[in-house]
């Protein structure tokens, strides 16, 4: 058996290669994110006061939905082509494979959303105090979203059309992330300290990073067991 680091390196290399080859899978959520934010002022009102009030929550909700949109394919391909079977049979730990997949998913969706969020804040007339908290909270929060979403993707992996069920399972689990994420931006705009909210987001992320892959790996085993 190869050593742990050789194994991890190969997993990372494969996932990154696949993400770059399948461009549409990570470009799609970004297009979704940008287009909705562009539509909001057109559809609701271009009034600056109104938009600036909506901005923190709106950007966060759309970021969350964009992540949700991209979850479907997280394990689907590997399930269908037999790669998951091969991972289980190889005797390597599925837990680490799931962590690698979720980290790469985070890098390909959460990171671009975080980088784009100030631009969208600008379109939504977000007050300037909100920019930095928005970037940090979307970056930190989307990590939790990827890892928690992995559980739903793993549970629905054996279903042909698992999308609806996936959303139903995952949306309740996303509520805390949304509350503290949007809350931190709101607090910053109102001139309060945001360290409390960021600490909670950080705690949610570290919890999700360690525990969610356990659940995902278990769910994948069940999915393969038929």
């Amino acid at each position, binding site marked *: 058996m*190869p050593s742990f680091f*050789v194994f991890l390196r190969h997993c990372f290399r*494969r996932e990154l290669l696949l993400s770059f080859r399948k461009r549409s899978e990570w470009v799609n959520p970004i297009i979704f994110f940008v287009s909705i934010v562009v539509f909001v002022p057109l559809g609701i009102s271009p009034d600056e006061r109104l938009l600036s009030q909506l901005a923190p929550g709106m950007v966060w909700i759309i970021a969350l939905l964009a992540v949700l949109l991209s979850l479907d394919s997280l394990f689907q391909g590997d399930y269908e082509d*037999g790669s998951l*079977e*091969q991972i289980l049979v190889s005797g390597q730990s599925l837990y680490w494979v799931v962590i690698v997949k979720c980290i790469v998913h985070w890098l390909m969706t959460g990171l671009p959303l975080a980088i784009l969020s100030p631009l969208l804040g600008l379109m939504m007339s977000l007050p300037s105090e909100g920019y930095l908290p928005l970037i940090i909270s979307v970056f930190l929060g989307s990590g939790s979203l990827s890892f928690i979403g992995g559980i739903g993707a793993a549970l629905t992996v054996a279903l042909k059309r698992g999308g609806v069920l996936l959303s139903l399972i995952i949306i309740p689990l996303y509520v805390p992330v949304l509350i503290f994420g949007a809350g931190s931006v709101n607090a910053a705009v109102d001139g309060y300290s945001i360290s409390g909210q960021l600490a909670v987001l950080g705690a949610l992320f570290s919890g999700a990073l360690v525990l969610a892959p356990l659940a995902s790996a278990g769910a994948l085993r069940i999915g393969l067991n038929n």
Partner: protein
Amino acid sequence: MAQSLIFNNLGFERDERYIFRHLAFQANAGDLVQVVGPNGSGKTSLLRVVVGLLRAEEGTIEWGEKDTDSSSLAHSLLYLGHETGVNYALTALENLRWYFGLNGSKAHSLSEAEEPEMTDEVLVHALNAVGLLGYSDVICHEMSAGQRRRVALARLFVSAAPIWILDEPFTAIDIAGVARLEQQLQAHCSRGGIVLFTTHQTSSLQNIRSLDLADFKPTESSLYGGELDDA
């Protein structure tokens, strides 16, 4: 690797109905075992039980000295299922690199630290052996079904895993390719390896032992796990 793979009284159930029951079999080093039986007799299920993808309701599998659950057996296995684990978006070489990055050679004599990394030369050589000369950098999406199957079969020319579990390995492979693979199976057995495979094609392999699942088909009374014949 003078070890045996032993099935003790295996029973597998699906939807509360036994597919096979009281299956006892011993495969010794150097055995080439063909699992035979009509459709639905549980050939694929048996192979998936052996590699640990399915759980048997009854019985145990032994490999080596002690009772094997999964881990030590998993470190000796090469498994090829109906879906081969060849990713369409990767090239042939990338697929093999990933596979051996996960599995390594699985040679028994090597500890984790001694395991050398597979060089690309070895992998390209394996691709040549399955007739994919010059295809190492072609995306698998652009290959035919048979060629993709060959990418997966190239693993047989690198792996030193003692047990090979092959479910319909010859699907979509042409006659010359099948002959080449049969040679490789025979070579593996003569090195003291064990091969368990299924096929619906007539093969020209010599010295096959067959494991007929019809022998372990449950009788009427034991079909639903009845207590009548339970000792």
